[in-house]
C-alpha cells in the first residue's frame, strides 16, 4: 500500500548508488528516529511494563501481572469511560456529521457573498483553546444564571428554569456533547465544503437541466461523491472520542458520578490524582488496542477508495 509505485527515479535499475548514500539516508532519518525512540518507543514499552506493576510513585513497584487489568474491568469509572467512547462516537457520527453536511451543502450550493464569512465563523469555535470553550460552555449551561435557565425563567417554563444541565447525570453528557458539537462541527463543515467544491460543475448543470431540486442533487450526486470524505470523518469522530479529554474534564471533571467520564479522564485521574500508575498504564494499553482497531478500520476504508 504505502510502497505503491511513486515516481522515484532514484531506484531505476542500473542507477549507480553513490558512495555515502547510505550515510546520507541514515543521517536524514536519524533525528526523527532519535526523537521517537526517546519520547515514543521507550514510553510505549514502559507502558506495557508499568501496566503490570502496582506503584504509587512513592512506593516500590510490585509486579502484579494482569491484576491491574482485572481490576480495571471491575472498575465502574473505567467501564463508564469505555462505554462513552462508543456512545460519543456514535452520536458524533449521527448528529455532528449530518449537521455539518447540510451546513456545508447550503454554503456551497447557495454560494454568495456571505459564504466565506459564514464559513470563517463556523470554523472559529474550532480553533478556540478548549479552556475557553469550556468557560463559555459553563455560561450557557450553568444553573441560576446560565443562558438556558434564564430563558426558562423569562418564558416562565419551570422545567427549563430549574433544569440542571451539568449536574443531572441524564443531561450532563448531552450538555458537553452540545458544546463539543459547537466546537468541532466547524472542522467537518470546512472539510465537506472543500470536497464539495471539487465536484465538477457540469454535474450540477446537468442535474439542474433535468429539473432536480437542491435536495435531490445533494442526495444523489453530492452525498455519493462525498462518501469517502464522510467515512474519513466518521473515523475521525471515533478516534476523537477515544482521545476525548479537554472539554469534559474542564466542564464537569467527568461528573456527576461518572456521567461524562472518558478514557482520557480515567487515565488522568488514576495516574495523576490517585497516583495509581499501574492502573493508568493499563488504561493506556486499552487505549492503544482500541486505537489499533480503529486504525485498521481506517486503512480498510482507505483501501475502499482505491478499489
Amino acid at each position, binding site marked *: 500500500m504505502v*510502497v505503491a509505485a511513486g515516481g*522515484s527515479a532514484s531506484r531505476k535499475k542500473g542507477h549507480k548508488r553513490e558512495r555515502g548514500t547510505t550515510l546520507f539516508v541514515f543521517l536524514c532519518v536519524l533525528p*526523527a528516529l532519535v526523537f521517537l525512540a526517546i519520547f515514543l518507543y521507550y514510553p510505549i514499552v514502559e507502558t506495557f511494563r508499568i501496566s503490570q506493576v502496582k506503584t504509587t510513585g512513592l512506593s516500590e513497584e510490585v509486579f502484579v501481572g494482569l491484576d491491574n487489568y482485572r481490576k480495571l474491568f471491575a472498575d465502574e469509572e473505567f467501564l463508564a469511560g469505555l462505554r462513552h467512547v462508543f456512545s460519543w462516537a456514535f452520536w458524533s457520527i449521527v448528529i455532528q456529521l449530518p449537521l455539518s453536511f447540510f451546513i456545508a451543502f447550503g454554503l456551497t450550493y447557495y454560494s*454568495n457573498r456571505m459564504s466565506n464569512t459564514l464559513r470563517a*465563523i463556523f470554523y472559529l469555535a474550532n480553533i478556540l*483553546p478548549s479552556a*475557553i470553550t469550556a*468557560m463559555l460552555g459553563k455560561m450557557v449551561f450553568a444553573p441560576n444564571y446560565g443562558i438556558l435557565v434564564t430563558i426558562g425563567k423569562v418564558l416562565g417554563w419551570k422545567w427549563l428554569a430549574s433544569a440542571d444541565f451539568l449536574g443531572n447525570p441524564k443531561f450532563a453528557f448531552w450538555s458537553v456533547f452540545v458544546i463539543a458539537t459547537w466546537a468541532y462541527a466547524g472542522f467537518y463543515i470546512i472539510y465537506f465544503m472543500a470536497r464539495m467544491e471539487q465536484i465538477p460543475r457540469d454535474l450540477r448543470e446537468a442535474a439542474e437541466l433535468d429539473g432536480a431540486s437542491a435536495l435531490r442533487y445533494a442526495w444523489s450526486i453530492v452525498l455519493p461523491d462525498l462518501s469517502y470524505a464522510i467515512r474519513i470523518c466518521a473515523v475521525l469522530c471515533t478516534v476523537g472520542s477515544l482521545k476525548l479529554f479537554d472539554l469534559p474534564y474542564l466542564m464537569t471533571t467527568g461528573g456527576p458520578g461518572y456521567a461524562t467520564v472518558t478514557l482520557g479522564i480515567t487515565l488522568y485521574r488514576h495516574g495523576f490524582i490517585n497516583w495509581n500508575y499501574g492502573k493508568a498504564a493499563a488504561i493506556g494499553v486499552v487505549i492503544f488496542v482500541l486505537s489499533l482497531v480503529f486504525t485498521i478500520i481506517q486503512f480498510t476504508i482507505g483501501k475502499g477508495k482505491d478499489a
Partner: protein
Amino acid sequence: MGEVNTMAVKPDRPRSIQGTRRRHRPAEIIVTVVLSILALFVIFPFVIPFLFAAKTQLEFAYHPWAWPKSFQVKNFIDAWKAVRIDKGLINTLIVCIGSIVCTIPPAALSGYVFARYRSRFTEILFYLILIGYFIPVQMVLVPLYKMEVATHINDTLYGLFLPMAAFGIPFWTLIYRSFFKSLPNELAEAARIDGAGHWSVLFRIMFPLAQPATVLAVLLVFIGAWNDYLLSLVLLTDQNNFTMQLRVASFLNAYGTDRMPRYAAAAIISAAPTVILYIIGHRGIIKGTLAGAIKE
C-alpha cells in the same frame, strides 16, 4: 491508505459547484438566512461574557442578564492580574516555536528520504516512524512523566515541546513524503548530473521547492502547540512555566465562578489572542487545516 489524512499540496482546482452569475433565488435567501442564524448561535457565546464583565459583583449576582448600569473596567484589571495571560503567552510562544523547530526539520529530512531513496531498509524505517502516528498521547502519559521526572526535564518548557515534537514528527513525515513524491524529478536529476551531492540537492533544490508544505507545517504545528492542554497539564507544575491554556484553566479552577464578572473578563482576555490571530489569518488557517486532512 498510508496517507489517508495527508495530501500533497497542489494548486486549487477551479471551484465547480459554485454558481456565481445566477440571480438570488428565494431558496437561496432562505438557506442563507438560516445559516446566518446558525452562525449567530456560534458567535453568541462570545458576546455573553461582555454583558457579565461590565457589571459589579452584586449587580451580576442579582440581575445577571440586565443591561449593565456602568462599565466596570476594574473587572478587566483584576482579571488581567489574576490570569497574567502575558506571562502565559510568552511561554506558549516559546513552546510553539520550540515545537516548530523540533518537528519540521526531522520530519522534512526523513520525509524526503522516504520519498526519494526507497529501499527495503528505508521502508522498514518508514513503518517504524508510521507507528508513532497511531499512538495516542494518552497511552504514554505515565511513562513519559516518570521519565521526565527521572531526568529532571519535567516542569521545563523544553520538556514539554520535545515530546510534543516527537508526537508531530510521524504525521509531518507522511506529509513531506507525499509532497516530495509529487515533485517532478528533473531538476534534481539535472543537478545531480552537474555533480551536486545529496546534501546540496536537498538544501538547494528540494527544500526551497517544499516551501508550501513547510508553510503549512509551521502553521499547523503552531496551532497544535497553542491549543495543547493535556500534555502541559501533566508536565508543567510551576505557575511560572504555565502556558496560556494552563493559566486560563487554572484560573477557571482556582477563581471559578464566585466572581463571575471577573471570570467573564478573564474569558474575554483569554480568548482575545486566539480570536485576533484567527481574524488576521483565517484564510490561511482554514486552507492549512484542509491541506492536512484531504487526500487528493
